């Protein structure tokens, strides 16, 4: 942004002040996230920079908090680190279990939200769709309704949504439910809850992609003899795929970061990373939280990069050139 040649001195001063203000706001946005990274290498159990860290003394830094992530919950943390030790990390370490739970819940919630959301978005972006506004409002509402309300409603309902072990459906759905056969305290309950929370993101991104979609391509495919299935997989899908993938990533991140619903409807077996962090921050705040935070920051950088690349690819495919 260049200053116009007719700018007065006062305008020049204001212009530079404005740039400084913007820089400060960008620092406000980004600095807290970046500060987490060096803090996680703290050798002391403090949540702040020690003098040794500030003077770049190597002794001020350590990997002990990352080590904690492996050893917390490990039955024999001090034995030599052979393959048996690592196997126990995989099976028993608290944070590793939380990561595994988070990953699986996130994956299934994403699959559910993406498949249902994309199908619905295809219907919603048809001109003939009846009650379009109302249905859209309902489907986007999980993003707007406060999570605490959703969690309260779910905790009431999921405790009642049970399939008794002696019912005919029990062998079919029983393994996915809790011991009492309920949605509460079960993996399925958490997956379903997270899928609902991820759906608005899929709907929004996919309908946005479809809004730039040229409907005549479908007619062209039909006129060239493609059946609806071929048309969908060969013409529609490749064009909306970037939108679908970024919607899926949003849904995954939503699930991966969700804690309130988990606090209300999950049992001790559904310990996830956010839940572990939430409890960690509430009880004894240790820099191990910062080590997890650092890993999560790296994950979010990777996700952001993926989404950016997809967006550019989508714009290129749809012939929108960046200006």
């Amino acid at each position, binding site marked *: 942004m260049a200053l116009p040649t007719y700018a007065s001195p006062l305008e020049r001063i204001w212009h530079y002040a404005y740039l400084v203000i913007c820089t400060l706001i960008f620092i406000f946005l980004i600095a807290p996230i970046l500060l987490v990274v060096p803090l996680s290498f703290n050798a002391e159990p403090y949540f702040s920079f020690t003098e040794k860290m500030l003077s770049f003394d190597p002794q001020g830094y350590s990997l002990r908090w990352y080590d904690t992530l492996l050893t917390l919950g490990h039955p024999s943390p001090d034995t030599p680190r052979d393959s048996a030790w690592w196997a126990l990390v995989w099976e028993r370490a608290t944070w590793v279990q939380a990561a595994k739970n988070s990953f699986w819940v996130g994956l299934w919630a994403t699959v559910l939200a993406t498949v249902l959301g994309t*199908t619905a978005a295809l219907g919603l972006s048809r001109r003939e769709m009846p009650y379009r506004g109302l249905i859209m409002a309902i489907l986007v509402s999980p993003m707007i309704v406060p999570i605490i*309300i959703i969690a309260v409603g779910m905790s*009431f309902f999921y405790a009642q949504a049970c399939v008794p072990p002696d019912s005919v459906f029990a062998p079919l759905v029983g393994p996915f439910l809790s011991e009492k056969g309920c949605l509460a305290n079960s993996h399925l309950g958490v997956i379903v809850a997270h899928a609902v929370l991820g759906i608005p993101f899929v709907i929004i991104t996919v*309908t946005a992609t479809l809004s730039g979609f040229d409907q005549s391509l479908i007619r062209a495919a039909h006129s060239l003899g493609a059946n609806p299935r071929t048309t969908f997989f060969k013409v529609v899908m490749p064009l909306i795929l970037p939108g679908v993938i970024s919607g899926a990533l949003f849904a995954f991140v939503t699930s991966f970061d969700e*804690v309130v619903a988990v606090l209300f409807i999950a049992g001790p077996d559904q310990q996830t990373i956010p839940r572990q962090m939430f409890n960690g921050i509430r009880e004894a705040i240790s820099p191990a939280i910062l080590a997890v935070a650092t890993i999560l920051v790296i994950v979010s950088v990777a996700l952001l990069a993926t989404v950016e690349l997809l967006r550019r690819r989508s714009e290129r495919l749809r012939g929108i050139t960046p200006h």
Partner: protein
Amino acid sequence: MIPATPELLKTADGRPLREALVAAQARSKRKAFLLVLPLLVFVLLTFLIPIGYMLKRSVEHDGFSKSSPTLTAWFHANPEFDHMNPPEGAFAALVTDLAQMQADKNTGMAGTRINYTVPGSISLFKKGAREAGDMQPPFKEAMLKLDPAWGDPALWYGMESAASKWTTDFYQVAADRKLTATGWERGDDKQRIYLYLFFKTFLVSGIITLICMVLAFPVAHLLAVLPMSKSSLLMILVLLPFWTSLLVRTTAWIALLQEQGIVNDALVALGVVSNENRLSMMYNMTGTIVAMTHVLLPFMILPLYSVMRVIPPSYARAARSLGATSWTTFRRIYLPQTLPGIAAGSLLVFILAVGYYITPALVGGAEGQLISNLISFHMNKSNWSLAAALAAMLLAAILLLYWIYDRLVGIDRLKLG
């Protein structure tokens, strides 16, 4: 000559065109709807029904009606009794029920239900139930001798209302109304905890929205006027917080703002504050506001940016060439064009802020709690119906805001990144 009746337009297979068109439209409508149907069913089962269930819980509580059948029947038979001075029959029914409660060991349930509207009822019921088995008529005298509180008209209003499973009592409590000798009345101003917290939540959300607006405006403007190559680099700085876990960002603010945190350390090192007078910016309202502003800022920047990017710069140049100062140009030409973005961003930030839970719970301390935290508190205390009533009130407020958002901005315009 009379012209022949115009022949109906027909399709190739001989059906009237109008009919064929209507049928085709109905078919494509059905097709579109069938695509949406699976998701609608899913959302209905896992989202709408649970919320409906919650609303039901907010008007339903059988803690008293289930354990007091005799008194419930008496209330039905005597709808017009004098609450100031209930007759002997009412006390007889009460004693019967209390004795039965003692035998069934569910005094707590009934007492808890009445306790919502008439504080102190739990102990009153426990005491009453212990003695009820040995009581001799006249029961009224005996009960009043045991505890004069049994003659309290508010208690009788409370029990009469609780005798039905369906009740609006929890909304009355959530609206800070109190049961008195003459029924429900507006509570003492000093004890209006729930409405006060609603008010505080809205006020804090308003403050956060305002701060976000002030911070987002220059940044969105800069992003909008920079060439695309530079602005997409800077955009990453906005999107990274958006993609970063909320818990990570909250943790970061704890590290920054706590008493032994980075900001205080820096201020002490610079000599701005002394070591003894470190600022307390965490576990109070300041912590909540700062951390929530950071979390919600991208939700303001993004809509503002998408509006600002399409504002043609020629209008501002025209204004300047016609002699307007840069301030006038901004105020009269640029600012009005950004209003849709400001409205969209502000409403979104406000809606999200009103329902915030995690950040206040972690960094708010006792003072920085919002309405969501109170709902969670009552859930943990098993005050389910009260929590549901509070949640329903919050939901009503949110739906109103959502409706305004839809009217003003349109849900279709909601964009992410």
